[in-house]
């Protein structure tokens, strides 16, 4: 049994979960509203033999986390929108070198420095396409305090399993709220441990070995063997290549390792959906608001359910399609704290089958249950 019951902020929960998931390296640069993650890591990591570095900037923080991952440890960095913009170049490097690393974005208002202390959900597309080039993205959108903890553990597991960067997209409300959570004993958690390549009989390590399935084995520096990593398109040994078949095969494998395993990554909460006539599609703290709005609307006689993605990338195409294709529902309202990002994904999956209405709000205040109730009554 765990005696780790206490009052925590969402940011503290992310940091504690990271350590419980085996994270032993953190590099970062403080930025509101994510700084408390860094603060906790600076205090707690040394206690478990981990390393914490406050780097000179966001760019270096991302680089340090990638480097640490290639020494064989689980690594994390955290920031907010402006910092993620700076990290974007190295996020691409993490994608192409297939580096497991967890990147937390506690979203605030933007663009640029925007509104540091206000919540928003305007970085969901940045997580998908913030760095250039075709690349897979895994991004998790926790919606409550429990999920700030457990979904962080899952983020580390997915990073290890698929050898790729994983985003946790929180927001200012989730990051800064204080509430009671009972943390599990770390030994009760399902944690994916990294198997680091060890050469047998002079075997050469190939960091991008296509014969080993979609996810090649992860190696580590300083283990008595040499290998090469580069941001250039590369062959199985990690050396730059201009050979078209190699480039295509490696690129396609990199995309496929996430796309083909979407079912293992996608996670949704369906709330009040069984007998619902309408669906509110919302995520993160807006997803929490939607659940309360659904209760209020039901008291008024409107049968409303909530489809709340907990993984936003890859997008829950199949699961949303099943809901739409069931023929049980009359319409969908997408609510998000931005001026329209995920709604276009919902429209893409919907293919014009159900009427889609929006509640898009970006004014430094959260999308509240009252906003959702009022808008729902206006449009449906």
């Amino acid at each position, binding site marked *: 049994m765990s005696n780790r019951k206490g*009052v925590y902020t969402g940011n503290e929960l992310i940091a504690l979960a990271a350590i419980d998931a085996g994270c032993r390296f953190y590099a970062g640069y403080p930025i509101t509203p994510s700084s408390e993650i860094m603060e906790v890591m600076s205090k707690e990591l040394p206690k478990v033999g981990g390393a914490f570095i406050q780097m000179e900037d966001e760019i270096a923080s991302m680089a340090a986390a990638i480097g640490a991952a290639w020494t064989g440890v689980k690594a994390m960095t955290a920031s907010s929108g402006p910092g993620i913009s700076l990290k974007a170049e190295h996020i691409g490097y993490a994608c192409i070198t297939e580096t497991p690393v967890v990147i937390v974005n506690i979203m605030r208002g933007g663009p640029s420095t925007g509104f540091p*202390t206000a919540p928003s959900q305007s970085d969901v597309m940045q997580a998908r396409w913030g760095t250039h080039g075709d690349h897979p993205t895994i991004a998790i959108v926790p919606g409550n305090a429990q999920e700030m903890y457990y979904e962080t553990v899952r983020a580390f597991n997915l990073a290890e399993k698929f050898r790729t960067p994983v985003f946790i997209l929180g927001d200012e409300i989730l990051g800064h709220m*204080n*509430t009671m959570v009972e943390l599990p004993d770390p030994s009760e958690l399902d944690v994916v441990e990294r198997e680091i390549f060890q050469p047998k009989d002079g075997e050469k390590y190939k960091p991008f070995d296509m014969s080993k399935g979609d996810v090649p084995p992860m190696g580590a520096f300083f283990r008595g063997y040499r290998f090469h990593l580069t941001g250039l398109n590369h062959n199985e040994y990690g050396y730059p290549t201009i050979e078209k078949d190699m480039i295509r095969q490696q690129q396609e494998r990199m995309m496929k390792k996430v796309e083909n395993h979407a079912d293992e990554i996608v996670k949704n909460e369906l709330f009040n959906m069984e007998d619902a006539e309408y669906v509110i599609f919302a995520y993160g*703290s807006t997803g*929490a608001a939607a659940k*309360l709005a659904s209760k209020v609307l039901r008291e008024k006689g409107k049968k409303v359910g909530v489809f709340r993605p907990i993984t936003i990338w890859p997008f829950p195409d199949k699961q949303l399609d099943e809901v739409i294709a069931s023929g049980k529902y009359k319409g969908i309202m997408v609510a998000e704290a931005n001026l329209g990002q995920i709604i276009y994904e919902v429209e893409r999956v919907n293919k014009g089958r159900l009427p889609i209405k929006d509640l898009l709000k970006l004014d430094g205040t959260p999308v*509240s249950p*009252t906003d959702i109730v009022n808008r729902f009554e206006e449009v449906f």
Partner: protein
Amino acid sequence: MSFHFEARFGAIGGQGIITAGAFLATAAIMQGMNAVQSPTYTSQVRGGPTKVDVIISEDEILFNRCTKLDLFLATAQRPYDLYYTDLKDDTLVILEENLVKNVREDGRKIIKVPIIELAEKEIGLTVTTSVIATGIVVAVTEIVKPDLMKEAILSRVPKGTEAINIKAFELGYEVGKKYR
């Protein structure tokens, strides 16, 4: 109908209202209820309008910002003007009487207390304003047991400030009792 209580405290950054909200939520949790504290502040370290929402409930709290306030407290005009939303017809309003001058007389019960003056004269430290305010709130609403509130305060204040914070809470509590 199960128990559900929502409070919002508006103040000026530096008055400690966010921490005061955390005291209340922590005390409610100690009393066995679900509670959440959710702050809003600006980039200004001191001087900007600030608020904290506290929800205390027997049920699971689905959304952690207030939507129907049982209590609204403001220690200055700006946060009063900015955050005077989500009120019900019977929301209890508690105001710092010297700093909130422009008051909406909209039929709701209003309690006016010179909180900052109390902090300065009785405690000798303006920064205790928010703790005094929570004392008033706990006395008026009886939402949590005062002893648990003191325990919550002691669990969260910096070392060396325990006595003065408890003194400030007790002062607020005594003042607040008059308005029950």
